[in-house]
């Protein structure tokens, strides 16, 4: 009765009535509308008096789905079957949104091998209540193998729509108990094919080629699944992963991942953080008793030539700080034999030391400081001092090119004048949680600070 011509146009602008004159020629009451679905849109010409239902029938052909899966939305209103475009005020060039609902049944089975979003109650629970699994009729159990094949089939075209887990867990459990299902599940060939053909798996494999190795070998896969079930182990692995990632950040060439990768090592690290801090404080007072920073200032005057690099002084456990901490800290941590180092640093203008990275110098102190402390603890690290000095020298060169040192210089001065404050800051900052936060925020800190450095320079 009403004929409608559909054209396909990929990137047509919505709201652009390009075919206006063409409309007139074909039919005076035809309207060109744009049907937009997720990631895709097509132009359609419809007569004004077409029923929405008939329009849906047209769309069926294009989107290969069923009538009850189509939902048309215009201006936030759902289009009912008995509506007409003119009723709804749909004019030329308007956009109608199309949502293709999933076949709920297929989704649930396809995702029985993946984690279910059960930890997001506010969304999915409401969904499950809304849609009791219509497709899962318990009486249809014998049909299950056929259904399974059927589900896998429409996966291909449908797979983009959504990944809802809709059916009740009881239904699923029931399905799984069915012997025919179990037979299927134990058929290795089928399962392997099933898993590898699932789109999500393919995406995963694209991103992570090692996964395909994992999936092919059923032994490994079984072990991996066992592992996945054991949440505690996962958490531990994640924890171990994280510090090692963060620690890599401050450009320290030393490989110190040894402890982090050991299970439980992370806890030991945490404990030793606290220990180190205490010892640091104590050593500060022990060695210098009084204002250590005035000692530094005194030395500044005498500037001795830089000692030859790796002077492997024996350090206290609280040894070697990172390059980016204030030079005022270093004397606290190191035997007086290495004071010469700091003197060297100060001769080069200690105001430059922290320049490069942190005009907001203090926030970065803890993460890198912490790194170094941990390193010390476990490596008896005399080496770190040399490395930190190397980094220092590197930084000094860099900072020579930038003039934001003025800011940090002032900061360092004030820090030196208030040693107690500095100690407090170090302690406070080296709490693990805070340092984690700083580490994560550090990249975002860096970017703007680099910009501002450029701008000031």
């Amino acid at each position: 009765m009403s004929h409608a011509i559909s054209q396909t146009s990929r990137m047509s602008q919505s709201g652009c009535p390009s075919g206006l004159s063409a409309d007139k020629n074909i039919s005076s009451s035809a309207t060109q509308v744009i049907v937009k679905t997720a990631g895709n849109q097509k132009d359609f010409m419809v007569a004004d008096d077409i029923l929405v239902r008939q329009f849906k029938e047209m769309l069926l052909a294009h989107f290969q789905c069923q009538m009850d899966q189509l939902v048309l939305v215009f201006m936030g209103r759902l289009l009912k079957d008995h509506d007409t475009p003119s009723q709804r005020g749909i004019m030329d060039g308007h956009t109608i949104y199309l949502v293709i609902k999933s076949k709920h049944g297929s989704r649930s089975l396809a995702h029985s091998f993946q984690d279910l979003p059960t930890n997001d109650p506010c969304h999915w629970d409401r969904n499950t209540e809304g849609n009791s699994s219509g497709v899962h009729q318990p009486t249809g159990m014998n049909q299950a193998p056929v259904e399974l094949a059927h589900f896998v089939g429409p996966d291909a075209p449908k797979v983009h729509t959504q990944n809802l887990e809709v059916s009740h867990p009881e239904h699923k459990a029931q399905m799984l108990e069915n012997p025919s299902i179990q037979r299927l599940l134990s058929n290795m060939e089928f399962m392997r094919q099933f898993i590898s053909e699932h789109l999500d798996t393919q995406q995963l494999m694209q991103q992570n080629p090692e996964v395909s190795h994992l999936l092919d070998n059923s032994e490994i896969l079984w072990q991996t699944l066992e592992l996945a079930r054991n949440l505690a182990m996962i958490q531990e692995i994640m924890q171990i992963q994280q510090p090692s990632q963060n620690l890599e950040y401050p450009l320290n060439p030393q490989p110190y991942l040894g402890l982090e990768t050991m299970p439980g090592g992370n806890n030991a690290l945490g404990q030793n953080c606290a220990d180190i801090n205490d010892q640091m404080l104590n050593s500060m007072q022990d060695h210098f008793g009084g204002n250590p920073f005035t000692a530094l200032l005194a030395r500044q005057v005498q500037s001795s030539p830089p000692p030859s690099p790796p002077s492997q002084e024996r350090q206290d456990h609280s040894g070697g700080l990172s390059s980016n901490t204030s030079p005022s800290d270093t004397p606290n941590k190191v035997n007086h034999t290495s004071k010469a180092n700091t003197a060297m640093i100060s001769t080069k203008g200690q105001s430059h030391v922290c320049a490069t990275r942190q005009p907001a110098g203090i926030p970065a102190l803890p993460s890198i400081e912490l790194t170094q402390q941990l390193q010390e603890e476990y490596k008896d690290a005399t080496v770190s001092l040399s490395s930190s000095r190397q980094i220092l020298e590197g930084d000094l060169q860099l900072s020579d090119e930038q003039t934001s040192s003025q800011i940090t210089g002032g900061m360092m001065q004030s820090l030196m004048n208030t040693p107690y404050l500095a100690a407090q800051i170090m302690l406070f900052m080296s709490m693990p949680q805070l340092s984690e936060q700083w580490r994560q925020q550090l990249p975002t800190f860096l970017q703007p600070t680099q910009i501002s450095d450029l701008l000031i320079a």
Partner: protein
Amino acid sequence: MEPPNLYPVKLYVYDLSKGLARRLSPIMLGEGEGARHTSIVVHKDEFFFGSGGISSCPPGGTLLGPPDSVVDVGSTEVTEEIFLEYLSSLGESLFRGEAYNLFEHNCNTFSNEVAQFLTGRKIPSYITDLPSEVLSTPFGQALRPLLDSIQIQPPGGSSVGRPNGQS
């Protein structure tokens, strides 16, 4: 037929000037406007797009806290079920996490898209126009590669539409 339920749709606007943008914008843009993060609130949930894909949380539940301003977009008949399906399909196609770009495909793009789907109306133009304003300055263009790499993902949401949840 029961009368259709109308669900209010709101746009939450967060002014990021307190943080990153405050440092950048006066220098770069010459305006005090700063960057904005937006999200759509409907069906008592807040939905937004970041570098981790589409996420959702209770309204005002991200680390950014309560919004700086709330814009009433309109109301929609779209039920939550349909909306979530739509979001899932968006998340698979147009709004994957890796598609995030601070200037051209960001949270405001998403909010605009969703607002149009839900109500047929767009979000206020002063929000969507900010990136193009920035890009039109020579400074903005020069810094474009750096800024392209900035990804914003307000913590506190859970992702929508993916079986293996990401944070």
